[in-house]
């Protein structure tokens, strides 16, 4: 499905929030590539910068207090971060679609479902009202909403949480975007409804060749979906790998700790290996490894130098000075 032709190339993104209580360094030099048709999982805890990174790309963060200090995001030969608001508006929703966590707050409560889908279709493709309605029915069908034609007239509050999220997906797909960014799209849903949505996304991926960035805190959700996964911590990517490699052979102590700290449904547990301490506050830009205070492998170098993403093997990178395979500080990093 995925080939190695990049549709989105982000390099050295830095985003800060200048608040009354000081500067929050939310994203600290993030670089990654998204290939056409690829499913990229972005995993991290709250405050790891996973959402802010993706929101920054389309300037969807409030500015001020937010500020994109540095970086570029090449999409279709153009730098998203250098675009004017007017140019960006043509990209948002048309070429890059968004699915947000909570469909109740991201759908407009006073507009019908049909109107919210056709709005984007008409704005970006300039079809007639009739054509847009037909497209909306087609989309609602596609996302598995029964009785689509009737549902066009429904308001968001008349739908259940799962149905609303399906509508969100329909809105995101409306203009056949090249990239869909989904920010915790199943977190607000119950587990049986989450399973329905995941099944739908799997189906859609096979039908449409859209690249997906799926942001989540749940390592379970992306395991069955993603081709590749980025693990974020304290506003940085700490590990990047193909999904099987990340889960089977994590190279960053944080990724490893996270995988060991979650129980599994299919296994009776040993004691959970918790990660000591808590995530840093991000009030200053990192000068050394952000995970060092919590890391069981930390040694002297970790407290004085900031590790960059080192290549471990092809397509597998980790921001760590420790050689997990050898069990000692790496000499080639």
């Amino acid at each position, binding site marked *: 499905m995925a080939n190695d032709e990049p549709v989105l190339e982000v390099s050295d993104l830095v985003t800060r929030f200048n608040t009354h209580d000081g500067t929050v360094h939310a994203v600290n030099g993030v670089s990654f590539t998204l290939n056409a048709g690829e499913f990229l999982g972005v995993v991290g*805890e*709250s405050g790891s910068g996973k959402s802010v990174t993706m929101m920054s790309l389309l300037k969807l963060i409030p500015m001020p207090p937010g500020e994109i200090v540095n970086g570029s995001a090449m999409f279709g030969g153009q730098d998203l971060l250098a675009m004017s608001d007017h140019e960006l508006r043509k990209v948002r929703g048309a070429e890059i679609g968004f699915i947000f966590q909570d469909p109740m707050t991201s759908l407009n409560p006073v507009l019908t479902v049909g109107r919210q889908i056709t709005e984007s279709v008409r704005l970006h493709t300039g079809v007639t009202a009739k054509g847009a309605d037909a497209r909306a029915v087609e989309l609602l069908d596609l996302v598995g909403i029964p009785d689509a034609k009737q549902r066009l007239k429904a308001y968001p509050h008349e739908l*259940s*949480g*799962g*149905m609303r999220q399906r509508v969100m997906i329909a809105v995101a797909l409306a203009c056949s975007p090249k990239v869909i960014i989904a920010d915790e799209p199943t977190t607000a849903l*119950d*587990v*049986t*409804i*989450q*399973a*329905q949505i*995941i*099944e739908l996304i799997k189906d859609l991926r096979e039908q449409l060749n859209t690249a997906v960035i799926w942001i989540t*805190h*749940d*390592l*379970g*959700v992306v*395991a*069955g979906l*993603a081709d590749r996964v980025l693990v974020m911590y304290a506003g940085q990517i700490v590990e990047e790998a193909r*999904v*099987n490699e990340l*889960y*089977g052979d994590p190279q960053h102590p944080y990724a490893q*700790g*996270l*995988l060991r*700290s*979650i*129980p*599994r*449904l*299919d296994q*009776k*547990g040993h*004691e*959970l*290996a*918790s*990660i*000591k301490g*808590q*995530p840093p506050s991000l009030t200053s830009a990192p000068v050394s490894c952000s995970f060092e205070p919590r890391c069981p492998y930390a040694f002297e170098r970790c407290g004085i130098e900031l590790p960059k993403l080192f290549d471990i093997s092809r397509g597998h990178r980790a921001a760590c000075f420790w050689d997990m395979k050898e069990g000692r500080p790496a000499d080639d990093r």
Partner: protein
Amino acid sequence: MTVDVGVGVGVGVDSAPGEDATAVDTPERKVLLSVRDLKKHFPIMKGVFRRQVGAVRALDGVSFDIYRGETLGLVGESGSGKSTTGRVILQLEKATAGTVTFDGNELTSMSGEQVRKLRPRMQMVFQDPHASLNPRMTVASILGEPLKEHKVARGAERQQRVESLLAQVGLDPSHANRYPHEFSGGQRQRIGVARAIALSPEFIVADEPIAALDVSIQAQVVNLLQSIQDELELTYLFISHDLSMVRHIADRVAVMYLGTLVEMAPVDELYSSPEHPYTQALHSAVPVPDPIVEASRERVILRGDIPSPANPPPGCVFNTRCPWAQDDVCTQVAPEWREIAPDHWVACHLVKERAVTIK
């Protein structure tokens, strides 16, 4: 002795509701808490005169027992009534019908003052450590309050007890004079645990104690709950929507759906051979953090959503989503809560009985 119970629809172990033999004391295990046919209906009021026009059946006839020293996991989706169960057990909500008996004391027929006297023995850990700690009180006064209220310790002794509680939950005793906002979410939940164990209780209801915490912090709190359970010989009702975590912590698990219990069994049995179609679907819906396992999993995808508890479907509450529901029975008759194998309880017409051991 072992008896064969008739196999067929609607035939269960002979028992009147309210005195069914969910549990029997044996030398190895003693019932600490028993719940019989417990109901909690919240009235729906409408109009100028606020007349009652209906009721949300949050809890609609639930029976189970909790044995001393065990952890009973209570799982279900939002709206299934699991939190209401916990709150009604601790008498934070008054039951509409049914009984809760704690160590021989029938709480549901007691006065507030009588329940208050038992309060030190049964406590609660809440979900949201931000909302459940008073922001204007220092940690010392939060932890000291139950000691004062129940006249357990005073003066220097109380101070000492507070410090030892903090140490017990892994916090620095010298932080006793700080306020809740000075702590992180995980630390605040530790304070919530410290408050719950301040009066040396026997029984704790933990209502989604880790749901508001980050993944890397969840394991810390769960490990803490397990270690203080061993230390203080606590009995837990662990309420959660996280089936993986419940498998990790519970001895027995009960599954709720729309205000009723659909299945209850020892943890390994419930996870290796779930009998109720809802339990099976719930299992297959939980993602496993392993791409190789995920690639080969077969999924039961339920259609539709959980119905409104204000208007539950007739017959089996699960019939609207059940892949095997049969028109003649499932939509007509509510299934009986019956023991299909020792300690394994199911409410489903379609599950066949195995040999039941009656102790």
